[in-house]
């Protein structure tokens, strides 16, 4: 014991860190903040450290070269002892980090922690969120597979739409005229040097401010933040009813961080690493690129934006979003902190959660994408063929051969790009069916040049049979009259 104390004293004489560390650790925090709601920031830091450690471990093997990256990932997965586990830890750690940072942000927002005097802490937090998302995206690129390759293509296509300088931005992003070795090196530099360096610096500033300004007091309805009096009130709160951060509050942080690490370890061991998917060979075009989970909502959004609005929204939308986040503490720097008195804040979170959740869910189904192999792999349900005429069955064949099934479903099978056709005869009469097939419209290509008159006749004959048994198909009542009274079918 004596020796340890002596060694400790030797370092303390030279470093002098003991006192400030002890003070920082035992600084008083409001009693209510020793809460399970206040553990997300420290958990994010813990996962960040895990990412640094596993990232360094991966860099021992990974080769940031367009020709070799994919192979080195295969070596990591299959040859290096437990290489797959380290990859899985890093991949799952990434997902957990984004999730925890988002939860942390929601908690801070709902608890009014961004208000005076913690405006700068919030702003640095917003930057940390952007960097975390940046790490997530660049990390996805380093997993250099088909998704990464075509994801870069999407990034380049979006950047090219920047007015005037777009083509230069593309070259800077890709490091050359095409997605290739220079592109991967760029994203490696961003993922391994630039963004982590910034993250470390900003995490330091973020933590420093938490220590200096104190943790946000538990929001009480009616306890209103005023610039003139807040600091004094907070000081009183910590002095009169405070507890020491260590150990009174910190144990919950430690337990939660441990639980998160355990969860990451479990997911890594059970689900394994992410990919890599197919080789990043741009001549293999049988691929349906998808982004990682936290960018799925964007994938869905890009499918639903109308073409004319897409470029302006892509250019201006992110800027507005970031500006709103940065401006928040200045617009609402005072006033009520409690979510119980801030219905708009609560509704904003709910709206965002529902919107992002819906888009993410849609992106898991991709109803906007044709099912590329439906025409050859999904047969027409037999109930639509039994008891039909030869012409109608011929039409069913046209339906398959011309790949209508890729975009239109029958009995829930097939593409969701266009409307399901199980009841189409109720909606469109014969003339309307012919017109729709030949001219297209409403986001359907025109097939006029691609169908012979006989094929069109057969196809429409088939489509006319697609209605429930008890309901008569749509018909143009005036047509019969116009063509001659004799052809009017008498009502039964």
């Amino acid at each position: 014991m004596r020796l340890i104390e002596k060694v400790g004293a030797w370092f303390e004489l030279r470093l002098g860190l003991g006192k400030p560390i002890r003070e920082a650790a035992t600084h008083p925090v409001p009693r209510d903040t020793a809460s399970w709601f206040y553990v997300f920031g420290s958990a994010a830091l813990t996962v960040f450290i895990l990412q640094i450690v596993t990232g360094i471990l991966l860099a021992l093997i990974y080769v940031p070269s367009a020709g070799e990256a994919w192979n080195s990932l295969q070596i990591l997965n299959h040859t290096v002892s437990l290489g797959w586990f380290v990859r899985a830890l890093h991949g799952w750690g990434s997902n957990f980090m984004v999730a925890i940072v988002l939860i942390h942000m929601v908690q801070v927002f709902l608890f009014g922690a961004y208000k005076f005097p913690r405006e700068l802490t919030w702003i640095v937090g917003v930057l940390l969120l952007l960097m975390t998302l940046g790490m997530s995206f660049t990390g996805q690129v380093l997993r250099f597979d088909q998704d990464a390759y075509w994801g870069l293509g999407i990034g380049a296509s979006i950047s090219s739409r920047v007015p005037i300088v777009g083509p230069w931005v593309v070259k800077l992003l890709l490091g050359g005229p095409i997605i290739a070795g220079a592109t991967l090196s760029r994203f490696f530099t961003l993922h391994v040097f630039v963004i982590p360096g910034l993250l470390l610096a900003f995490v330091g500033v973020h933590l420093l401010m938490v220590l200096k300004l104190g943790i946000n007091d538990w929001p009480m309805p009616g306890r209103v933040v005023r610039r003139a009096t807040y600091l004094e009130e907070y000081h009183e709160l910590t002095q009169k009813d405070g507890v020491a951060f260590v150990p009174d509050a910190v144990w919950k942080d430690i337990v939660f961080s441990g639980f998160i690490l355990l969860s990451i370890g479990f997911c890594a061991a059970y689900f394994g690493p992410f990919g890599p998917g197919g080789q990043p060979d741009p001549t293999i075009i049988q691929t349906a690129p998808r982004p990682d989970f936290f960018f799925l909502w964007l994938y869905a959004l890009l499918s639903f934006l109308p073409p004319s609005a897409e470029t302006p929204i892509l250019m201006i939308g992110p800027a507005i979003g970031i500006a709103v986040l940065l401006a928040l503490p200045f617009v609402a720097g005072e006033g009520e902190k409690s979510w119980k008195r801030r219905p708009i804040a609560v509704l904003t979170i709910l709206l965002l959660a529902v919107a992002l959740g819906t888009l993410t869910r849609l992106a898991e189904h991709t109803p906007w994408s044709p099912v590329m192999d439906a025409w050859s792999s999904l047969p027409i349900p037999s109930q639509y063929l039994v008891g039909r005429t030869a012409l109608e069955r011929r039409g069913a064949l046209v339906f398959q051969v011309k790949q209508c099934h890729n975009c239109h479903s029958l009995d829930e099978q097939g593409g969701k790009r266009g409307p399901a056709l199980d009841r189409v005869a109720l909606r469109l009469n014969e003339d309307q069916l012919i017109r729709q097939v030949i001219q297209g419209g409403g986001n359907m290509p025109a097939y006029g040049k691609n169908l012979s008159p006989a094929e069109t006749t057969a196809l429409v004959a088939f489509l006319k049979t697609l209605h429930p048994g008890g309901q008569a198909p749509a018909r143009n009542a005036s047509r019969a009259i116009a063509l001659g009274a004799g052809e009017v079918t008498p009502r039964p």
Partner: protein
Amino acid sequence: MSAENGMSRRALLVKLGLFFNGVIGLALTVPIVRYLLSAVTQERKVGYDSWLSLGALEKFPAGQTRLATYRNPVVNSWDGETGNIACWVRNVDGQSFQVFAINCAHLGCPVRWFAQSSLFLCPCHGGAYYQDGSRASGPPERGLFQYQYKIENGNLFIKAGEMPTPGQPVANKAGGKTTCA
């Protein structure tokens, strides 16, 4: 030690030192920025595009659309497979051709040709194009990008070398053939 004008000798030296460092810093910035912008400046000097052979004309029967691949003219030894680029060649009538970029005009995903329905379909966001490359439906604002082509000694050549993007489409360059859109 302070001078009459209120500035001490040491304060002046600090300012001079900062100024000196500023000048040096600025002088170092120029080459660094040039280095960072090399991908842009290289293009302005020599250009990325050049004429490439897609092979003999027999590979592209009249009235059909076939996938062709080429090695990008600007590649490094470590680019691997990423230096191989695909494109769609349509032999319109045995005389004239259309060579489409593989990249969807929406956000660059690889479009696939469906001969039976004569459509190019994109797997990402559902863009669709007719056989002549014009837009059929979906989010794209325009038709497929097209490469310039020429026929020499029974071989089909295209002018390529750069990934086409909505901001700088191949078809917008001089001589690019456009179709009905």
